[in-house]
């Protein structure tokens, strides 16, 4: 039977969580912003390269409303997740600090669960202006990439890296 894992996608509102999922699952992008209410669930079957070889995985992606940050409701939605993708917006002031707040909640509510960090909207920010996010990696490990839901840059890699980490540590 194909393994299925719940993966939460977290971040402040309008950082592009829904767009990243749409890019990953459907390969498309829409310019207009539609706030997510509660949670939108997407099932995506993919093959993940692990150290044991390729492995099929059903990723159940939980796109969690950004405005719920830190509230009890958001914590309830996190329950049972195998890992989290934390999304930040490169065009905002100090996106790494915003991501760190989400990462701290995940670390507390889901100890031992892997995280990867997506600095989205890389298409709008010159490489020299992008933060390196080393503080996040130092605190939580994982992987951090600048990415773009608009161009697709680094999007599959982030989801694949999270999937591989989940499978390799056997969550």
């Amino acid at each position, binding site marked *: 039977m194909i393994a*299925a*894992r*719940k993966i939460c996608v977290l971040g402040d*509102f*309008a950082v592009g969580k829904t767009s990243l999922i749409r890019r990953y699952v459907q390969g498309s992008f829409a310019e207009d*912003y*539609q*706030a997510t*209410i*509660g*949670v*939108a*669930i*997407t*099932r995506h079957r993919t093959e993940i390269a692990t150290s044991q070889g390729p492995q099929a995985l059903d990723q*159940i992606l939980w796109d969690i*409303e*950004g*405005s719920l940050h830190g509230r009890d*409701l958001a914590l*309830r*939605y996190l*329950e*049972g*997740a*195998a890992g989290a993708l934390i999304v930040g917006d490169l065009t*905002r*002031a100090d996106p790494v600090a915003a991501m760190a707040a989400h990462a701290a909640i995940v670390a507390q509510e889901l100890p031992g669960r892997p995280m990867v960090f997506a600095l989205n909207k890389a298409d709008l920010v*010159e490489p*020299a*202006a992008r933060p390196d996010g080393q503080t996040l990696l130092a605190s939580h490990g994982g992987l951090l990439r600048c990415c773009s839901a608009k161009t697709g840059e680094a999007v599959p890699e982030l989801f694949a890296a999270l999937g591989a980490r989940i499978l390799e540590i056997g969550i």
Partner: protein
Amino acid sequence: MAEPASRCSGPVGARDLPAGALDRLIATGRFGLIQLDRDLCVQARHGAWLGWLAPGAQAIQALPMLLGYEPALRAIAAGQRPSLLLPRLAWPGGPLGERVIALEVLPAGDGAGLLLWLQDASELAALEQQVVQQRNELSLAEAALVAARAAAEAAHAAKSAFLANLSHDLKSPLQVILGNAALLADEGALAAAERPQFLQDIAASGQFLLAMISDLLEVAALESGRLELSEEPVDLALVLERSLALARGLPGAAERQLACRLPSVRPWLLADPIRLQRILANLLSNAIKFTTPGGLIDVAQQAEAAGPLVVTVSDDGCGIDPARQVRLFEPFQTPAAGGGSGLGLHAARGLAELHQGSLTIRSEPGVGTVACLTLPAERRTEPPP
């Protein structure tokens, strides 16, 4: 055929409903009820929009929103946890369609399993969506306003600093010119051997003033939109060679190695040769300024016979601090060392963009800097007959 919902023990709140009320609730089409046995398999489902859910199916597989909640579900079934409420769930592309549901998981009672009480919350969610959307958009607009105000204040501060420095930058070379001229006019003031150096200093100060005033005029023309290119077929290699020859006359150039690599086939392009030379002069002048004596400055043109025309000016100088790189092309950004008007790169990028091209800079402190001028392939042309 499943039993009527009212034969189930029903959700906690519904147990006290009058007989048949639960069925009538479900018949409204806004509610659904799923009964799970102790093994979390679907026993029965009630509700018009749950027909796709096969009795006997494993709930965790059929309803992906339950994945990860197995311990919670078993705890509820065993009476160790009262319930679980997930108030807004959407499964776009799934069998619930675009519906947003509220899902409550409750014990069926007597360890018999679980009840999943589903309510169609689409209408309420749509209203919430409007409110949240407006609130978020307002927050984004407010943040953009704050950032724009900060940027405007920073630009104003940079402009003020620039104007404050301008008088000093203009005065210093003028003082050299006037002072040296006075000394040269006084026949007894200088030994004959000293006079060439004083003349050279006058020339260097004049060049500095000329460059600064040219930058100012260029930026003023660019920003007012008055600058128009005077285009003609141009031998790009010739422009590079001329720029390099002029750069060799700049102060400090003699102590640096200036190399030039050109392709064997010289491309021609439609461009404004004077403006093109100004871009390259600016890049070369910067490379000389920020390279220590003995350093290497390399001008290269990519050899591709088709596609965009790319010229790079590389140096092995001190490089640029990452914090400064972000604002490199903004006007009035005077470098920490090396001097200059703080307008040169701003003007150079503007001129590159007037040619529908681009100017980018990659730099690593302590390693060096590469400036890359790219002009579109459409500008390639044949040499004049």
